[in-house]
């Protein structure tokens, strides 16, 4: 594909182009305007900030739990409070922090990385955020009404069923899941459409950044895994509210069915959280090793393989339920096999770091921390994959240690590295590096102090989800140590927030590309303009900004007087047609309100499903009402 022979725009043409672009992409003003934003940077930032708030909330709940467990026979939290706290902690971290945060980073970064101006469906993007926020508020309204769920984040039946959990607590849990899954599915659909169809010309699939590959794999996983949890939570909700018999043992329902359907989602869920983090690690490693990633193809195939194999592991959460030996053997093999795909990635990163010119900034510190913590967590996971061993340590603090190692090590540390890496892009200023390194060490030490002793506690017989224990068990000292560690983690969180706030105003001005990184987001301004790039880029290699400047090509011919982007072909990103995006709109919010009325109301009265559907139908008609001009000018 060779560029047309048209001329490079003159300075006046560029200025004219810029003015109209600024105008078409301007944010609408006022409160209604703010509620109508559809740019991906704004929506992405909303996800990131909201998810961070819930990280803090979940962290506070954890700290309370740790205070209770610090001493045997402690009376800081009684059993009811403790059960609500650990359930809400897990639910908040999994559904209201981890997945939305990764999605927020994806929404923010993917259009920049693929060289376009917005996601494929800007209004759907806004709608997805409002649904997430509504679900979060819905759950916490319940929490503050003494109706926080108290049956564990996975809410096994029949404990979560109508007979053993009267009242509304698991209903809040189940319906919050519906909200957040709708949100996740919207994001998945739009990221796939964006990555497939809106890449810069020349960015064939084998040239997209590994972070985009990770968001692509994650989005497909969301599509095939999230329906499962919708069904699981709906089984529970409808058994509780309209007396169906899906998972109720009394009338032929089966508690194990719930477990299968839940974990068919639950296992891919952790990869849904973890795979975007792997993409972030690649971005940080490449930028700070100043070399191409080692083994791009192997990395892509590993990501895809992890996605696929992740769907075949779920029964390893159920080894204690009395499975046939063959099934147990298969799931052990699969659980161990996935260690290979992750292992390949670790080896490739180490190879890249080994042969690069390292810049040991805070982001890279977090990558090293990720390697240490995640590898330990992955190895304890291999151990859990063995049925005989799992039968001993399942449902003990050993498992709590394992999943915090893989989730905090595998997702949170890369995320924090990502914050330090992309903060200059998002705000225009660098975070303080000295404070950043302190931040890293405080978190690293605090984390290990908190969770390493839990491996030992599990081996010493301490089960999960107990609100207290007696002194003769000998679990006191390790628990106290873990609580001290938790306080240190909290300190690390405070240091991070302080750094974020301070650097906003006093951080060093960053410029477009402070790290001399190769991917396209670093070509945009810091922070990016609403339209991202004045002229969309054309790429000729995998590392666009490491291509010499005189080889760079830009796209001309897109209208700047409307929100127009370029749609390209799937494999090779050949330009196919111009694609006009809608202007800002209040309809996504109105639709979200209508759907919320349906979802939230139906927990109390099934008729709300009907009212909500009718209202949502009306809102959608408003959303899709034909816009003027009906015929697009060419």
């Amino acid at each position, binding site marked *: 594909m060779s560029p047309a022979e048209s001329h490079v725009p003159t300075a006046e043409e560029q200025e004219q182009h810029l003015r109209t672009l600024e105008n078409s992409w301007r944010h609408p003003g006022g409160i209604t305007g703010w509620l109508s934003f559809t740019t991906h940077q704004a929506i992405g930032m909303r996800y990131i900030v909201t998810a961070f708030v819930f990280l803090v909330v979940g962290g506070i709940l954890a700290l309370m739990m740790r205070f209770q467990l610090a001493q045997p026979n402690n009376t800081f939290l009684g059993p009811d409070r403790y059960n609500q706290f650990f359930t809400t902690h897990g639910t908040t971290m999994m559904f209201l922090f981890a997945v939305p945060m990764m999605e927020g980073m994806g929404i923010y970064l993917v259009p920049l990385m693929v060289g376009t101006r917005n996601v494929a469906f800007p209004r759907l993007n806004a709608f997805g955020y409002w649904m997430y926020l509504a679900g979060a508020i819905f759950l916490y309204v319940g929490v503050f009404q003494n109706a926080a769920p108290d049956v564990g984040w996975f809410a096994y039946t029949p404990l979560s069923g109508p007979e053993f959990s009267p009242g509304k607590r698991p209903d809040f849990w189940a319906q919050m899941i519906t909200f957040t899954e709708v949100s996740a599915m919207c994001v998945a659909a739009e990221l796939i459409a964006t990555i497939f169809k809106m890449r810069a010309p020349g960015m064939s699939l084998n040239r997209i950044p590994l972070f985009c590959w990770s968001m692509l794999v994650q989005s497909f996983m969301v599509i095939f895994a999230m329906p499962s949890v919708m069904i699981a939570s709906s089984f529970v909700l409808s058994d509780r509210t309209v007396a169906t018999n899906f998972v109720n043992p009394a009338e032929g329902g089966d508690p194990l069915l719930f477990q299968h359907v839940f974990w068919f989602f639950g296992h891919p869920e952790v990869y849904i959280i973890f795979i975007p983090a792997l993409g972030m690690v690649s971005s940080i490693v490449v930028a700070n090793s100043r070399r191409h990633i080692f083994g791009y193809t192997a990395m892509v195939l590993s990501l895809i393989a992890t996605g696929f194999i992740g769907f075949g592991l779920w029964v390893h959460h159920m080894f204690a339920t009395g499975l046939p030996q063959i099934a147990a053997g298969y799931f052990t093999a699969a659980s161990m096999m996935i260690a290979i795909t992750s292992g390949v990635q670790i080896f490739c990163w180490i190879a890249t770091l080994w042969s690069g010119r390292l810049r040991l900034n805070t982001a890279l510190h977090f990558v090293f921390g990720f390697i*240490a913590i995640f590898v330990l967590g992955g190895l304890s996971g291999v151990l859990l994959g063995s049925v005989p061993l799992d039968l001993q340590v399942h449902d003990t603090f050993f498992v709590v240690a394992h999943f915090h190692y893989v989730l905090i090590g595998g997702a949170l540390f890369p995320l924090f590295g990502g914050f330090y890496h992309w903060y200059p892009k998002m705000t225009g200023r660098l975070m303080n590096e000295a404070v950043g390194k302190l931040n890293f060490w405080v978190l690293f030490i605090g984390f290990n102090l908190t969770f390493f002793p839990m491996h030992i506690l599990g081996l010493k017989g301490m089960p999960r989800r107990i609100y207290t224990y007696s002194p003769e068990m000998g679990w006191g000292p390790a628990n106290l140590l873990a609580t001290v560690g938790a306080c240190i983690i909290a300190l690390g969180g405070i240091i991070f927030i302080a750094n974020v706030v301070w650097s906003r105003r006093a951080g060093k001005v960053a410029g477009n590309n402070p790290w001399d990184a190769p991917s396209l987001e670093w070509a945009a301004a810091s922070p990016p303009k609403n339209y991202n790039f004045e002229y969309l880029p054309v790429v000729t290699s995998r590392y666009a900004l490491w291509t010499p400047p005189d080889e760079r090509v830009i796209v001309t011919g897109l209208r700047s007087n409307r929100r127009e982007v370029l749609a390209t072909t799937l494999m090779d990103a050949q330009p196919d047609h111009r694609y006009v995006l809608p202007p800002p709109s209040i309809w996504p919010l109105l639709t979200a309100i209508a759907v919320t009325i349906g979802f939230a109301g139906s927990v109390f009265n099934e008729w709300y499903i009907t009212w909500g559907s009718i209202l949502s139908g009306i809102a959608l008609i408003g959303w899709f009402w034909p816009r003027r001009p009906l015929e697009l000018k060419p």
Partner: protein
Amino acid sequence: MSGKHQSLNIAALCFAALTLTSCAGRQQSVVNPAGPQSGQIATLWWFFLALLSAIFIIVMVLTALTLTRRHRGIEQEPLEATHLPPPQTEAGLTRVVTAATILSIVILFVLLVTSIITGKNLSELQDRKNPMVIEVTGQQWWWQIRYQNSDPQQVLVTANEIHIPVGRPVMIRGTSHDVIHSFWVPNLHGKRDLIPSRVTTEWIQADRPGVYRGQCAEFCGLQHAHMSLWVVAEPPDKFKTWFDGQLKPSAAPGTAVLQRGQQVFMNHACIFCHAIRGTSASGQNAPDLTHFASRRGIAANTLPNTMGNLGGWITNPQNIKPGNHMATIAMNPPDLQPLLQYLESLK
């Protein structure tokens, strides 16, 4: 920097090994096996720990070495110009990464095979000819125990404490009366869930006498934390003595105080839930009290079985185990002492 990483993590491993093998808290410990099942699993655990630790150390060393490399200033020019090291370096790295991947596959395969072999060994530790079968039914928040026997006179119903003869395989047939619980006695074997509407089975065996603590390992509601049990392994003759004693109906109250105590029991709501064989109390919703005083703990081992604890429990069960299903029974103070004496006489 990563030298620190490395030594931190190795220190942690040593700490782990020390605390695991320390004397304190060997009760309910996975690495203190008292039978063939838990013994096999503990062996597997040490094997896995050794191999996985070795992998961890190697990966950490390699990671740490990436930091030292930058000081050796190798091949900076090609890297600065093209962001790619020379082809020989890439080729070398490819060889190493490939070797590491193959090595990982081999190690994982070894772990898989040892795991499956252990599983197979465990499944063969059974006694099909003359099995001793104990039904365990999980309840919120206690354990109903029933020794099966084809002869109805030899069927024993008790609660919260199991006795088994040393050296004999015992099959635990588990189910639940309400929500999912999990039967777990780590000194003897891994756990098995107790699931309503299903029956799960597990073979346990103690090879030395001892008192082994177990605890419910599946979150089952408010008092999941206080649902534990004792498994007492005794030489076969002592076991028989215990068993025959348990089969007998309850001791008739000999003194006036004990008779008064029995009367108090019969006149209060106790009889709606509890059973004492040999009396008219035959409630099925709560632990069988026929030989209550022979047990080590009360309220599923929430507290040791002493007169004082029992008094506190009966007066206000919600204070000790909030949310549990035992009602607080209004009792006149003069009634309490005889009742306690009576119950503690039910050996």
